[in-house]
């Protein structure tokens, strides 16, 4: 009985992230537009964009290889699996033991690996510049992310996200300096990984400033739809990760009644709304930085992660 309900929770969660991901991006775009005193497109515009892309034909470059055509599905699948393993509203996910936080980081790494290769497949300068910058950013963001994972795992005594969320939801954690540092590090990494301002601008197509968009410039039609969908999912994944590790209030732990699921889904959506508001305000208030300032930004995240980990040792209270 428990197994069946767990599987339902797992499947529900996989469907929920798929349904919510475009909406989250739509909401962020809408809030950003309102902050700039524009009316902005409807919050459901990303769904319409995806449907429109799906109906269009694919224009492939003449020398695109099979790798170019496989990559959209591989990256989408890797990100979706990673997103399915992050507890959103309930912690006892059926398959959460099959991959822990380190594996989730590595799954996102796989997605990026293939996307960077696809950027180089056609042999244009745009793809190359995008891939080259993306791997530079990743080379700094990934260690920073793993140090954040170390910090959280050392406090929670586990790298298993369900266990971490249950532990963080218990009252014995309290406020800790090292957790605060880890949270800031994770937010910085999330901004870089999702190609948000100040690291990259998701709305620009100006050659010299773009990273992510340059890499996928050759994609069109259903392939582009899969990549865009993957990007929406990734944003949702990172926000869910921040929520489940640092703000796991009202998350349903194992053995709770059906009513608590409803409450926790509502709480989760509320938390997402708050996060998208904060993200939109932050993006509107800051400017994009030069590409070669990004290492400093991510280096700061790395140092925060390391400091958080070391502070954990210096004092138990912190």
């Amino acid at each position: 009985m428990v197994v069946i309900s767990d599987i339902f929770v797992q499947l529900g969660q996989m469907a929920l992230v798929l349904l919510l991901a475009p909406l989250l991006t739509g909401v962020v775009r809408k809030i950003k537009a309102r902050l700039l005193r524009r009316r902005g497109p409807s919050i459901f515009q990303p769904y319409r964009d995806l449907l429109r892309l799906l109906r269009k034909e694919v224009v492939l470059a003449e020398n695109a290889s099979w790798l170019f055509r496989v990559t959209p599905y591989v990256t989408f699948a890797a990100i979706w699996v990673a997103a399915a393993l992050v507890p959103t509203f309930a912690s006892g996910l059926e398959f959460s033991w099959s991959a822990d936080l380190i594996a989730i980081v590595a799954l996102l790494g796989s997605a990026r690996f293939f996307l960077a290769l696809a950027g180089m497949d056609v042999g244009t300068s745009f793809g190359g510049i995008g891939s080259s910058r993306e791997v530079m950013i990743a080379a700094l963001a990934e260690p920073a992310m793993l140090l954040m994972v170390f910090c959280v795992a050392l406090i929670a005594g586990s790298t298993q996200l369900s266990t971490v969320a249950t532990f963080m939801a218990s009252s014995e954690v309290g406020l800790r300096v090292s957790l605060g540092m880890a949270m800031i590090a994770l937010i910085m990494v999330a901004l870089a990984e999702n190609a948000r301002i100040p690291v990259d601008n998701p709305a620009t197509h100006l050659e010299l400033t773009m990273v992510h968009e340059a890499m996928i410039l050759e994609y069109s039609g259903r392939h582009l739809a899969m990549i865009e969908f993957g990007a929406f999912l990734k944003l949702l994944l990172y926000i869910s990760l921040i929520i489940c590790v640092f703000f796991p209030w009202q998350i349903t732990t194992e053995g709770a009644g059906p009513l608590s699921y409803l409450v926790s889904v509502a709480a989760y959506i509320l938390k997402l709304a708050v996060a998208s508001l904060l993200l939109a305000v932050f993006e509107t208030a800051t400017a994009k930085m030069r590409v070669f300032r990004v290492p400093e930004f991510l280096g700061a995240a790395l140092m925060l992660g390391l400091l958080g980990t070391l502070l954990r040792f210096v004092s138990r209270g912190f």
Partner: protein
Amino acid sequence: MIPAVAQQIWCVAALLGTTALAIASSRSRRSTALVYGATFAISLVALAGALFSLIARTGATELTLPIGLPWLGSHFRLDALAAFFLVVVNLGAATASLYGLGYGSHESTPQRILPFFPAFLAGMNLVVLADDAFTYLLCWEFMSLASWALVMAHHREADNTRAGYVYLVMASFGTLALLLAFGLLSGAGGSYSFAAIRSAEHTPSEAALVLALMLLGAGSKAGLVPLHVWLPLAHPAAPSHVSALMSGVMTKVAIYGFIRVVFDLLGPPSWSASVVVLILGGATAVIGILYALMENDLKRLLAYSTIENIGVIFTSLGLALAFQANGLGLAAALAFTAALFHVLNHSFFKSLLFFGAGAVLTSTGERDMEKLGGLIHRMPLTSFVFLVGCVAISALPPFNGFVSEWLMFQAVLLSPDLPQWGLKIMVPAIGALLALAAALAAACFVKAFGITFLGRARSPAAEAAGEVDRYSLAAMFALAALCFLAGILPGLVIDALSPVAEAMIGHRMPVQANDPWLSIVPIEESRSSYNGLLVFVFITAAASLAVYFIHRFASRAIRRGPAWGCGFSDPTPAAQYSGASFVQPIRRVFGTLVFQAREHVDMPAPGDLRPARFKVDIHDLVWERLYTPLTEAVWFLADRLNQLQFLTIRRYLSLVFATLVTLLLVLAIWS
């Protein structure tokens, strides 16, 4: 039933016989097929024997042969550790022989390779089997010299003689360090056999000295920074299947030597020893992969990446030492198993990648990545297996590289149990270095695959490339399959490694075979677990679901058109992103410090018609700061001592007399 160790010795004898066969048949056209066929068969037999004694836990078997030093004989022993490393050696040997069946037929001077190839394999087998210091050193030197002869196979190519010379000097230096280490171990009594050394007591200062000497001796063979300089010269100089053996297997034999002495013969370690190993390992990992990133020669890139992986393995061994010194047996077993797992993984994917580089070399005649490109269209099978190797070595799930990396991170996360503050703080920092090295490795192999196989062909040779022969492909596909299987069924590998950990550490990781769904649980389930099989199934299912829905409900139309060039399409393939431009951002971030990289732009004044030039200066600081002063000092001394060659007989006699008197005086004062 002959004992397992005798079977292995028979295999070695057969390999040496193959050497004789190669010499005898050197004029025959069939000799290539004959030699590689023989080594393939013998390696498979040896592999089966080693695998059986590892998995069936047959226990140690010993053998003494009446050869070698008189009244001493040669001792050989096959225990769990030796069995594991024999598996690594003979698996690499079997695939390299299979690959050689195809690759070797392109060789212009096969008689320079064929006799030494089986001898090299025999040497590596013997080092692992040796059970006394004398035999060990003799076999070690035999292995070094055989591999040196293989490095010099193409001695007419420009840089190869220098590579061979540097290799010879470094190998002699390494053997000297090993000689001193074993001298210290066998003590004043001169007990050469490992059994006697194991039971003897070693003072802490002696142990520290032996550890330092082993780091020099085994480290120089394995490629620890700063003793790595010969490796990126010598490994690529050899024919590709030998490069694969040197990088994938011979460095592992060096690691075997380190483990044998430090974990087995030396007795309980001190925690300060682990600090040295951890720092050296972490530094080697990061510096090695940065060198690899800057490299544009495909085989040298792979050789530098070997240095990184050796660093990763040493880091994990350092962790095992730290835990073991503090009596944390389970944690030590975890770190030790992770190191062995990575040894196995690296032998898989590095051999695979070197085979791939060899296939590219046969097909295009090029090792320079800046002259390749677009090979995915012309060598589809090779590019597929090369991609598998790249994904595996970049530590991405669900392949095998990720599993060993994951186990190492789990070991790093046990650092709060360590009592020493220095270690407590250092271990997470070393973990950060490991994470950095892994991320940079992914960048490096995006470059390696992207520049070589993707994009447009950068030279006519790359344009005219074709797929390689079936033997080479079979060897590569076998290794790719092993990378995949070890990635999705890691529990089986961990269980197979448990007798080694038991023998060396005294503890083992929990049995993984009973865990549901073949997942691996290093400590306990609530703490961490990973299931490569399920991750693979999930990814496949999610991707298939996406493909199904899209092809069922969305447009399936495809149109081919020219690539988008913003209105000005690149006129030549040379305008593509090159290897050097791909790493420019990373060079700017890390290279200014590690390589003192400087970019110079020579921009002519307006009206001046000469082209603008861009130049990058990269310095190899290890060469410039360490080896150049050293060679200069040696030259200086040699110059001075040169005068001794031209003395009169009276002066020589007086010198001899003075030396004799001094020695006698020293003796008199000493006693």
